[in-house]
């Protein structure tokens, strides 16, 4: 069936996710409250400049928010027994996954937009650059794909996936130069290369502070590479677990 038709049907899935999952408890807790508290705990009582804090907030905010809906959708649909109805409709599995990714991406971009606003209007930080805007969109897709990949195991228990998701998220946050710049990580910085968040935080630091570890082109290419990897891995994972969901 026509690729464009399938893309359109992806957007139907996006719309459904936005209606059904946005106000679910786990999404609010892990998508908005948790990163806010984490950031406050990190920033309060320390003498950090705004230009250091804003990239932290951007990186963590986008990463945590975007990867909060994706992991919830599949187990929730399995538990509510709506998934079989969905896969029996004339929509390809990749299009369902893409629809879920776009829903998470929009949620993340919406929250990140407010972080941009707070940074620019209230705090007067100059953070707009074209590479950051492009990077934010690619990173949102990348982190959202990671969320979908995490939800591939065939459980019908959202909290099991949330636990796995939090484990991955915290690990990535601490190894990606969010709180400690990569240049200050010594020999441990090699580990940061395997995290896509590293490249987004680096891009944010470049756009706000003017300091960077990798060049913006490398950051963008790395984010793009991780996006493709996670997207296809998510499709493969869900394909494999599909028959076990019923």
């Amino acid at each position, binding site marked *: *069936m026509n690729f464009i*038709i*399938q893309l*359109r*049907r992806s957007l*139907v899935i996006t*719309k*459904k996710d936005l*209606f*059904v999952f946005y106000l679910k408890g786990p999404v609010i807790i892990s998508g908005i409250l948790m990163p806010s508290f984490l950031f406050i705990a990190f920033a309060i009582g320390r003498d950090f400049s705004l230009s250091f804090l804003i990239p932290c907030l951007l990186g963590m905010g986008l990463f945590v928010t975007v990867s909060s809906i994706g992991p919830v959708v599949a187990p929730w649909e399995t538990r*509510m*027994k*709506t998934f*079989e*109805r*969905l*896969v*029996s*409709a*004339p*929509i*390809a599995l990749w299009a369902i996954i893409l629809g879920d990714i776009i829903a998470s991406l929009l949620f993340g971009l919406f929250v990140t937009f407010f972080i941009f606003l707070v940074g620019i209007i209230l705090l007067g930080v100059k953070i707009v650059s074209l590479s950051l805007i492009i990077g934010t969109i690619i990173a949102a897709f990348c982190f959202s794909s990671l969320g979908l990949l995490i939800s591939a195991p065939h459980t019908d228990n959202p909290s099991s996936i949330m636990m796995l998701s939090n484990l991955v998220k915290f690990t990535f946050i601490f190894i990606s130069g969010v709180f400690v710049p990569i240049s200050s990580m010594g020999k441990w910085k090699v580990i940061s290369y395997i995290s896509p968040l590293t490249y987004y935080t680096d891009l944010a630091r470049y756009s706000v502070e003017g300091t960077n570890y990798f060049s913006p082109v490398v950051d963008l290419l790395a984010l793009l590479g991780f996006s493709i990897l996670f997207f296809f891995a998510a499709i493969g994972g869900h394909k494999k677990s*599909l*028959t076990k969901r*019923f």
Partner: protein
Amino acid sequence: MYSIKAEYLTKKFNGFTAVDRISFKVKSGELFGLLGPNGAGKTTTIRMLTGIFRPTSGTAFIGEYDIQKNPLEAKQIMGIVPEMANAYVDLSAMRNLLLMGELYGIRKKVRIGKAGNLLKLFGLYEKRNQKVKTFSKGMQQRLIVAMGLMNDPKLLFLDEPTAGLDVESVRLIRELIREFNSKGITIILTTHNIEEANQLCDKVAIMNHGKIVAIDRPEKLKNTFKSTASVEVAFDREVEAEELLFGNVVTEVKKVGDKIRLYSARAEEVIPMLVEYSHSSGRKIISLNTLAPNLEDVFVKLTKE
């Protein structure tokens, strides 16, 4: 013209064969029943035919489309009411129907009109804007059947559509199944309810242990099993079952409430024997009926073998 052509369909899960080389055809406009005990492989068969499970081997055509090669095209012409499926309980009935319409690519104006008509037909129009979580089980199931009809399917799969429902919903759904079938929609009905299959289906396939053990029109199947014809008799006093075997004429004697059912392929010979027994034993016959084999008898016989 066939709506379904399945050839040697097989599905294995980790070495366990859930469906074992089944072949059958369903003519367009037919109401086809799939019967079988739990674990017989009915739902797995439906899931292969609807493109949810990929067969381990074998082929299935939905109309002109091979379900493995053109699953999306095949799904576009079918409506599906999966077993145990739910609507989105956080959405309204109307929004659930519109969501299905969008997934089938139906234009906005058409899908709004269609959703409204289906809600009226299934008696849900007054509650169209209420969240589905406030609906009773019967109302939810009516909505789920309606969701399967949003795309005007040529072929409709109904997997246990009346299981566990109240009488009113069961009657409504059965009436609508007949009505949609009379309009030319081919219907595949999976059910545990043998009487439901007997009343609704043009043809039934009985499955057991992943295989089709019989496939025919319900009346023909009943005739195949003449030995399950029976005579039901009630006496004014208790009777020892062995006394009514009449040599080899009666194959089985069963107590059914205060009556006794005698199974025999020669039911017409049993009646004079019973009258004779009544005279000789001094017992009065209170009631005497001959019963043709029913589909349940056929089902039990086939699935026991």
